[in-house]
């Protein structure tokens, strides 16, 4: 599969507000993330003055800060471009970022109150906070502001469905983690139908990490397996962290399953698992949750990582739009920056800005009617982001995944399956599914007899 190059030179930095309108439009058209759209709406409306405050609460310190810094960068990049395009109906956008450190319920709740009460933000455009448990939802619902995050949590669906009217302004910009589990048997079935992999049985062995994220995914795999001709023949729960995999791998070997799925997600632990598995492998595909997306997994596991499968429900696509975003992002924040987390907050901000401009302006805390209009626009207006189509399902205010919930990639966000092709390379993994985005084909892992 040829790698598609972007259609033109990368967009120049758009910091200068004096940038000519023509130059601006041509550069924005390269990527097409929405600056031109916004500029168009701005031009057709009465201009307001003043500033709009947008909040964010992400980890800027502590062990979870790696992604948090990118979340902040993505938001900053979008705001810079939006202000260059005339802001939101003339109002300049300004961000207030609060550190949610270890992302506990306590820290996230307190950050939410700070943003609403002290800063008076009109919206919170967020990355993720894994431990918050929707503790922040009620403060946001009380203030009826817009809150967009990508917590990847089924808990969002449950809280939203419990009272859609109260939580109208809270959106999750990626599919819930359970779709990882729903999607895996679908993808395995596809691989099996290609014929390169001919499993001796239809067993899936589950190794489940003991964090909720892992458990939800494992449960979803178990529930979906049968529909695609698989059965879960074995399951073992491992504590977090786990580095000694001898006991669980021995039991897995006795079972000799077609597929082993490990939903524990720490890259270091998973690398140990793969190294210990490779010492005495069985003819099983090995799927790991999340860890192998990071280069650290391949660095730690070395050659043993070759052939491993992993997936993501949100990731920059290797297409014209995705590549253009990647280039712009790296030009701005350096080669060591990770573009994927940045793309999320960047896109959420654009989507919000356009929805607010169309609604005739932003809504401050307590401005229930205006924020309702904006929320309606967010649901109505499909946004094409570097990671595919962002469309909110009105039943649960969350992104719709392709192909698990919708089989139309123009209306849903693709669930991406990767295989580690070269552990030593700068980018060890290649996208192998779904079409039309894939850049490589599935290959049988080297440990197969």
């Amino acid at each position, binding site marked *: 599969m040829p790698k598609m190059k972007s259609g033109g030179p990368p967009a120049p930095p758009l910091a200068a507000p004096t940038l000519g309108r023509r130059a601006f439009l041509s550069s924005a058209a390269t990527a097409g993330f929405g600056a031109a759209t916004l500029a168009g709406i701005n031009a057709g409306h009465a201009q307001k003055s003043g500033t709009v405050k947008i909040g964010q609460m992400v980890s800027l310190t502590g062990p979870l800060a790696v992604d948090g810094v990118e979340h902040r960068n993505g938001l900053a990049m979008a705001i810079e471009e939006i202000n260059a395009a005339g802001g939101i109906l003339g109002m300049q956008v300004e961000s207030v970022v609060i550190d949610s450190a270890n992302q506990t319920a306590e820290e996230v709740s307190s950050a939410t109150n700070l943003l609403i009460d002290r800063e008076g933000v009109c919206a919170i455009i967020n990355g993720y906070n894994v431990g918050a448990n929707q503790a922040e939802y009620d403060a946001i619902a009380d203030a009826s502001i817009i809150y967009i995050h990508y917590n990847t949590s089924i808990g969002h669906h449950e809280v939203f469905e419990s009272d859609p009217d109260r939580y109208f302004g809270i959106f999750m910009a990626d599919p819930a983690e359970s779709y990882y589990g729903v999607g895996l048997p679908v993808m395995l079935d596809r691989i099996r139908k290609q014929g390169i992999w001919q499993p001796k049985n239809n067993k899936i062995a589950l190794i489940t990490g003991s964090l909720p994220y892992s458990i939800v995914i494992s449960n979803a795999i178990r529930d979906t397996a049968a529909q695609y001709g698989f059965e879960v023949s074995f399951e073992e729960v491992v504590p977090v962290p786990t*580095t000694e995999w001898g006991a669980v791998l021995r039991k897995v070997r006795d079972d000799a399953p077609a597929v082993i799925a490990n939903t524990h997600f720490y890259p270091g632990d998973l690398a140990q698992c793969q190294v210990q598995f490779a010492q005495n492998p069985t003819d099983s595909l090995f799927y790991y949750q999340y860890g192998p997306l990071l280069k650290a997994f391949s660095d730690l596991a070395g050659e043993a990582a070759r052939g491993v499968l992993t997936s993501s429900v949100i990731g920059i696509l290797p297409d014209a739009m995705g590549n253009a975003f990647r280039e712009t992002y790296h030009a701005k924040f350096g080669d060591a920056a990770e573009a994927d987390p940045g793309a999320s907050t960047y896109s959420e901000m654009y989507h919000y800005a356009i929805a607010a401009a169309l609604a005739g302006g932003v809504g401050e805390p307590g401005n229930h009617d205006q924020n309702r209009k904006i929320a309606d626009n967010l649901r109505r207006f499909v946004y094409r982001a570097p990671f595919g189509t962002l469309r909110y399902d009105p039943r649960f205010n969350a992104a719709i995944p392709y192909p698990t919930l919708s089989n139309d990639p123009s209306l849903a966000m693709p669930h991406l399956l990767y295989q580690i092709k070269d552990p030593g390379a700068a980018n060890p993994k290649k996208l192998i599914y779904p079409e039309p985005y894939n850049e490589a084909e599935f290959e049988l892992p080297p440990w197969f007899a």
Partner: protein
Amino acid sequence: MTDILATTLGLGALYAASAVSLALIWGTFGMLNLAHGAFITVGAYASLLVVRDLGMPWWTGVFAGAAGGATIGALTHILLVSRVFARPAFEINIIILTMAAATIMVDGINNLIGPATARQPFSIDGRIAFGATSIAWQTVMMIAISVALTAALTLVLRHTALGRSINAVAQEPTAARLNGIAVGRIVLKVMMISGAVAGVSGVLITHGTAVYPTVGQDPLLKALIICVIGGLGSIPGAVVAAFLLAFLETLAQYELGTKWGSPVLLIAVVAVLVLRPNGLFGTRDIARN
């Protein structure tokens, strides 16, 4: 069963190396060092920095670990232990102080070196065959280093002048001082030895777990349990308890499920202390008189 025994052997050697370091200062000075886990982490990072960042050969890692551990042991003595040693409420004060010190060390590594996980460079590849089964060179090396450390420590304590001074200070600090023993320097030496052993065990442990800032937390708990079950300050007791508990943990993981490994150990230690407050092999009195 051979799987269980092989795992027990490797795990037991690791636990023993880490636990004797804790047992040494607990047994001699009645000092429970809750920064032990941080010592382990510092040793692991010292090896990482010397081999990965300074480009030294892989085998220097274990010496770097020892040096890093000894340095942090000396610092802990100078900044904390010497301030409260042989004073009222030493026993609880030093527990609180070392807990705080551990936070500073882990925070420092987190903020100055970074939270990312890295591979421990001190490792060798390959396996040697043993009839039908085979054992990794890494495991052989781990067992050899652990045995050497424990033996050396026992020899120093029993048969050297330093060992005799340590015992004198341990029994009665005031009397030792009156007999012309420089108590402060003895404690400093013990802290450095203990730090070095913990540092080396950190290098060995992180081969299996990879190196990250909080990597010492779990080994600290294990070492605490081992020392309690082995009996206060008894180094041979700690070694026996290390293998016993490694066996118990492995057995629980294989028979009950992986997640039961740690809880079984913790419940075991509570049970032992409630039923046999002197530890399984303890001779000295640890219960209230």
